[in-house]
């Protein structure tokens, strides 16, 4: 019955900075997601969410939502975001500051770089099992392709294709370069 399944269901899950992050790099920041795997009621409403906190000059690698639209709401600080559509056009290239929201349609590529000390955001996603695909870094879409396919795809020498696969060891968040870190300190 409804009363057995809904009335006592769990409706709350904390994803704020104080909670245990799913993605963490002390030099770059943290990300926590909540999907229907964590909070089963989300399967009913077909929504999920993500909370992120990026240190100054840290980058969230270019990525896209496979199966969801998203609304990125800036909670604190500001970041530089770029969004690209299927025709390779930059549809957003600007700052997102606290209190503003940016809608990123499904499959549009997006990347962010924190401009302030701590950029915090919450992203609402229109799928209870929203997933992202990363376009840079370790285990990204580029890494999943054979070296020769990558070289032929981008018209690169094999050595350059190797660099493309190997040079960034980070998966989601890239810490600021050493010089940028020193400048912040």
């Amino acid at each position, binding site marked *: 019955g409804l009363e057995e399944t809904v009335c006592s269901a769990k409706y709350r899950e904390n994803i704020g900075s104080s909670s245990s992050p799913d993605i963490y790099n002390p030099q770059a920041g943290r990300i926590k997601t909540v999907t229907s795997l964590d909070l089963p009621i989300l399967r009913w409403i077909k929504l999920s969410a993500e909370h992120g906190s990026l240190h100054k000059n840290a980058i969230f690698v270019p990525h896209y939502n*496979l199966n969801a639209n998203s609304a990125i709401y800036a909670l604190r600080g500001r970041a530089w975001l770029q969004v690209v559509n299927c025709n*390779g056009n930059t549809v957003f290239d600007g700052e997102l500051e606290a209190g503003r929201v940016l809608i990123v349609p499904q499959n549009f590529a997006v990347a962010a770089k924190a401009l302030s000390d701590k950029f915090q955001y919450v992203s609402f996603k229109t799928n209870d099992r929203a997933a992202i695909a990363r376009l840079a870094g370790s285990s990204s879409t580029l890494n999943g392709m054979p070296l*020769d396919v990558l070289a032929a795809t981008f018209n690169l020498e094999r050595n350059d294709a190797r*660099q493309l696969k190997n040079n960034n060891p980070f998966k989601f968040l890239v810490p600021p370069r050493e010089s940028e870190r020193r400048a912040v300190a």
Partner: protein
Amino acid sequence: PQQNECQFERLNALEPDNRVESEGGLIETWNPTNRQFRCAGFALSRATLQRNSLRRPFYSNAPQEIFIQQGNGYFGMVFPGCPETFEEPRESEQGEGRRFRDSHQKVNRFREGDIIAVPTGVAFWMYNDQETPVIAISLTDMSSHQNQLDQMPRRFYLAGNHEQEFLLYQKQQVRGKEEQESEGSNIFSGFKRDFLEDALNVNRHIVDRLQGRNEDEEKGAIVKVKGGLSIISPPERQPRHQSRSRQDEERWQPRPHKSRREEEDDEKHSRHHDQGGSRWKQDN
């Protein structure tokens, strides 16, 4: 579909009405804004790949079902979060004096008559390594719940500097509403160079290639590969119904029942054989 979209008095057999030529083949599309397609909620395209041609990786805003009408070759899909399970052996390291050993996600072979299922947002590529041109018919299910955009099929290419096959219809739809600034590039081309240099930790030359800025980048969605691709892949097996000999057939018959003693003897023999054959197979 919108109201009355499917109220047909007559149906027509349709031919593709758009053709985008590439260095290594061509992609033909049927107009997805045609009423019959709008009613059915899907889009259709046909790709032809010449020998040694690679369809560059792309992903779509809806799931696809691809039928191989002719030819055979390789295809790959890159699933986010999945491990790179195909690895180059150590021998090649010594043989060619290389330190780098490539690894990537699973690569599959396709042949005539195959259906390939491609999930939404998963990057897909295919390659023709044979003489016969590959012809692949692709249905993109726009009405799938996995598509959260509008009913227009969209291809997100990871590389190149070419017009994506459904762009023509998009332009027809937006004409008069808003002008598109530029067209025909890949998803990397919209990012700032500096940004990609930092995100990928590579030099400007590689970023330019990634963004399709190099001078000879007018090859289209399907490119020719000089000398062919070298892909880590297991040797091809003949389909069982063709290769199975009479002896094989007999092996497939149900085995006669054995007594416990006979089974123990078999096991002993098998262990002995294993120990002789490989020193790695030891008790823990």
